[in-house]
C-alpha cells in the first residue's frame, strides 16, 4: 500500500483511544449539557414545591430534545447593524473553548484525550479562559449599547474571579507538586507513600476548595453572581441579540463550562476517579458501591412503578429499572468473569468521577435556587477585597505548611491544621471588615425636606 495509507493506519493505530474520547466529548457533551439543563429544571421545581417539565416524554425526559429541535428550526435573526462575521464567530468561540478544554481532562483513569500532557491543569484553565473572548465579541457584535455593557461587566466579573480561582488552584498544586492531571490524582491516592495512604486534597486544603467553589460559581456566571444575565435587570446582557441556535451555543457553552469547572475541582480536590478513602483496605467494600447504587435505584424504580397512575408511565418506570439493573450488571461483570477485570479501574473510576462532578454541579444549582443575586459592585467588592486576599494568604499558608513538614519535620496534619486555622482567621477579619464597611454607610436619614417647595 502506498505510504499515505500506511501513515494514516499507523496514526489510527497509535491514537485510536484518544480519537474515540475526542469524538465522544464533541458528540456527547452537548447532549449531556442539555440533560443537565433538564436536571436543573427538575431540581428547581423540586425545591420550589412543583414538578417541572412533565409533558414531553415520560417525566419530561425528552424535553432537551424538544428544546434543541425548537431552537434549530427558529428563524435566524441577525440584527441589521451587526457585524456578520463576528456575530457568527462569537458563540462558536465560547463553545469550542469549553469543549477543547475538556480535551485535557481525565474523566477516569483511561478516558483522556490529551494524554499525559505536561501542563494538564494549566491547559484546561487557559483554554477555558478563551471563552471570555466569545463573550466580549458577542456583546460587541450585537451593536447594541446594552449588550456591550453587559459583555464588559460579565468579562470584568470573570477576570476578577479567575484570579482568585487560579490562586486556589495553585495552592492545591503545591500539595501535588505537578501539573499533570493523572499525577495529581495519583498524588491524592499515594499522598503518604510510607504509610501507603491517600487523602483527598479537600481535607488537606479545605479553604482552597471553598475559594475555588466560589470562584467557579462566578466564573460560570451562575447565581448568586449572575447579574450580567439576569432578566429583571435593565442591562440585558451579551446574549440579548442572539436567538435560536446561536443562543443555544452560548447556553451550551455555559453548561459545558460548568462541567469543566466541576471536573477541575474534582481532579484537584475531590480525588478525581478515586473512591472515598482510597488505599484504606478495610473500606475496599466501597468498590462495590456503584453496583449497589444502581441496583438500589432499580429497586426504587420498581417500587414506584406500582404507584404510577397511567400505564405508559408504569412501563417507563420498568424500563428505567431494567436499565439500572443492566448498568449494575455491567459494573458487577468483572467480579463474576475474571478475564474482564481490566475494565474495573476504568469503569469504576469513571463512575466515581461523574458522581463527584454531578455532586459539584448539584451544589451550583442548589445555591442558585436558594440565594438572591449580588449587585454588580457588591460582587466586585467580594472578589477583590475578600476572595483574592484570602486566596493569596491561602497560597502562602499551604506553602508554609509544606515547608514546615519537609524542613522542620512537623507532622503533616498538624502543619496543615495550624495554617488552615490561620487562613480562617484572616477570612474572618476580611469578612468583618466587609460587614463594617457596608453597615457603616450612612444610616442617617436626610434632613427633612420641604416637599411643597418648588
Amino acid at each position, binding site marked *: 500500500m502506498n505510504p499515505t495509507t500506511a*501513515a494514516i493506519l499507523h496514526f489510527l493505530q497509535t491514537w485510536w483511544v484518544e480519537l474515540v474520547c475526542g469524538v465522544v466529548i464533541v458528540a456527547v457533551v452537548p447532549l449531556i449539557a442539555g440533560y443537565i439543563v433538564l436536571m436543573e429544571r427538575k431540581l428547581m421545581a423540586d425545591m420550589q414545591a412543583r414538578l417541572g417539565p412533565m409533558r414531553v416524554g415520560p417525566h419530561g425526559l425528552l424535553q432537551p430534545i424538544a428544546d434543541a429541535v425548537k431552537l434549530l428550526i427558529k428563524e435566524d435573526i441577525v440584527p441589521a447593524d451587526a457585524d456578520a*462575521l463576528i456575530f457568527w464567530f462569537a458563540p462558536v468561540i465560547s463553545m469550542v473553548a469549553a469543549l477543547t478544554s475538556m480535551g485535557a481532562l481525565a474523566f477516569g483513569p483511561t478516558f483522556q484525550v490529551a494524554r499525559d500532557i*505536561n*501542563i494538564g491543569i*494549566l491547559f484546561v484553565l*487557559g483554554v477555558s479562559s*478563551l471563552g471570555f473572548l466569545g463573550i*466580549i465579541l458577542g456583546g460587541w457584535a450585537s451593536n447594541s449599547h446594552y449588550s456591550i455593557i453587559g459583555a*464588559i461587566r460579565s468579562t470584568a466579573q470573570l477576570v476578577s474571579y479567575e484570579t482568585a480561582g487560579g490562586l486556589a488552584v495553585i495552592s492545591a498544586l503545591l500539595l501535588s507538586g505537578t501539573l499533570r492531571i493523572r499525577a495529581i490524582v495519583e498524588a491524592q491516592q499515594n499522598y503518604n507513600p510510607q504509610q501507603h495512604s491517600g487523602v483527598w486534597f479537600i481535607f488537606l486544603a479545605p479553604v482552597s476548595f471553598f475559594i475555588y467553589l466560589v470562584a467557579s460559581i462566578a466564573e460560570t456566571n451562575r447565581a448568586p453572581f449572575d447579574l450580567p444575565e439576569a432578566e429583571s435587570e435593565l442591562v440585558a446582557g451579551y446574549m440579548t441579540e442572539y436567538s435560536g441556535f446561536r443562543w443555544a451555543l452560548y447556553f451550551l457553552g455555559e453548561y459545558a463550562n460548568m462541567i469543566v469547572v466541576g471536573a477541575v475541582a474534582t481532579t484537584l480536590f475531590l480525588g478525581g476517579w478515586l473512591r472515598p478513602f482510597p488505599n484504606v483496605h478495610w473500606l475496599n467494600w466501597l468498590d462495590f458501591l456503584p453496583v449497589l447504587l444502581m441496583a438500589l435505584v432499580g429497586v426504587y424504580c420498581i417500587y414506584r412503578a406500582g404507584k404510577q397512575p397511567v400505564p405508559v408511565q408504569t412501563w417507563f418506570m420498568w424500563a428505567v429499572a431494567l436499565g439500572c439493573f443492566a448498568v449494575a450488571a455491567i459494573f458487577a461483570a468483572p467480579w463474576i468473569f475474571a478475564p474482564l477485570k481490566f475494565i474495573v479501574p476504568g469503569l469504576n473510576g469513571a463512575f466515581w468521577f461523574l458522581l463527584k462532578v454531578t455532586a459539584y454541579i448539584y451544589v451550583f444549582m442548589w445555591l442558585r435556587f436558594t440565594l438572591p443575586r449580588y449587585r454588580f459592585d457588591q460582587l466586585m467588592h467580594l472578589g477583590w477585597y475578600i476572595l483574592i486576599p484570602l486566596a493569596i494568604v491561602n497560597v502562602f499558608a499551604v506553602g508554609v505548611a509544606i515547608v514546615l513538614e519537609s524542613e522542620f519535620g512537623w507532622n503533616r496534619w498538624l502543619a496543615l491544621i495550624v495554617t488552615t486555622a490561620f487562613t480562617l482567621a484572616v477570612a474572618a477579619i476580611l469578612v468583618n471588615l466587609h460587614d463594617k464597611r457596608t453597615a457603616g454607610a450612612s444610616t442617617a436619614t436626610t434632613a427633612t425636606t420641604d416637599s411643597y417647595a418648588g
Partner: protein
Amino acid sequence: MLDSILFYFFAGVAVLSAALMVTRRNAIHSAVFLITALLATAGIFLQLRAEFLFIAQIILYVGGIMVLFIFVIMLVRLDVAIHQIRFRMQKFVALLVALALGLELTAILYFARKLPGQGLFIQGSAPADQLPPNSEELARSLFSSYLLPFEIASVLLLVAMVGAVVMAKNKKRTDEP
C-alpha cells in the same frame, strides 16, 4: 508525517491570518485575525514540545493582551481618530522597514544552513520529543539561575499594578467633586 501536516497547517493559518490582519478595514476583525495568528503560533510551540510556552501564549497573549486590545478598540472612539492628521510619510517608511526586515530574515535563514545540528542557535540539542519536560525545566531555571531577573520582573509588575490603580483612583477623585 503527521508532524509535517500539522506544521504546514499551523504555519499556513499563521501567515494567512497575519495577511488578513493587516488588510482589514475593521479594527475588531484585525484583532480577531491576530488572535488566530497567535493561536497558530501557539500550536507550533506545542509541536516543538514547548508546552509551557504554548499555554503561556494562550493565557497571556490571547487571553490577556488580546482581550485588552479588544476592550480598547471597543471603547475608544475610532471614528474620531480616523479624522485626525496622520503621519504622512507612513507608506514610505513602512516599505523601507519591511525591506530591511526581509533582508535580515533572508540573511539569517541563508547563514543558518551552514550551522551544524538542528535549529538555528542551539547547538547539539536533542530532538523535540527527547527534551526534558518544558514546565519543570523552565521552573528550575527560573528559580535557580534566573532568580534575580524573576524577582525584579515580579516587583516591576507589582509596581505597574499599584501604579495603574493609583492613577485610576486619582482620576476618579478629580472627576467627582
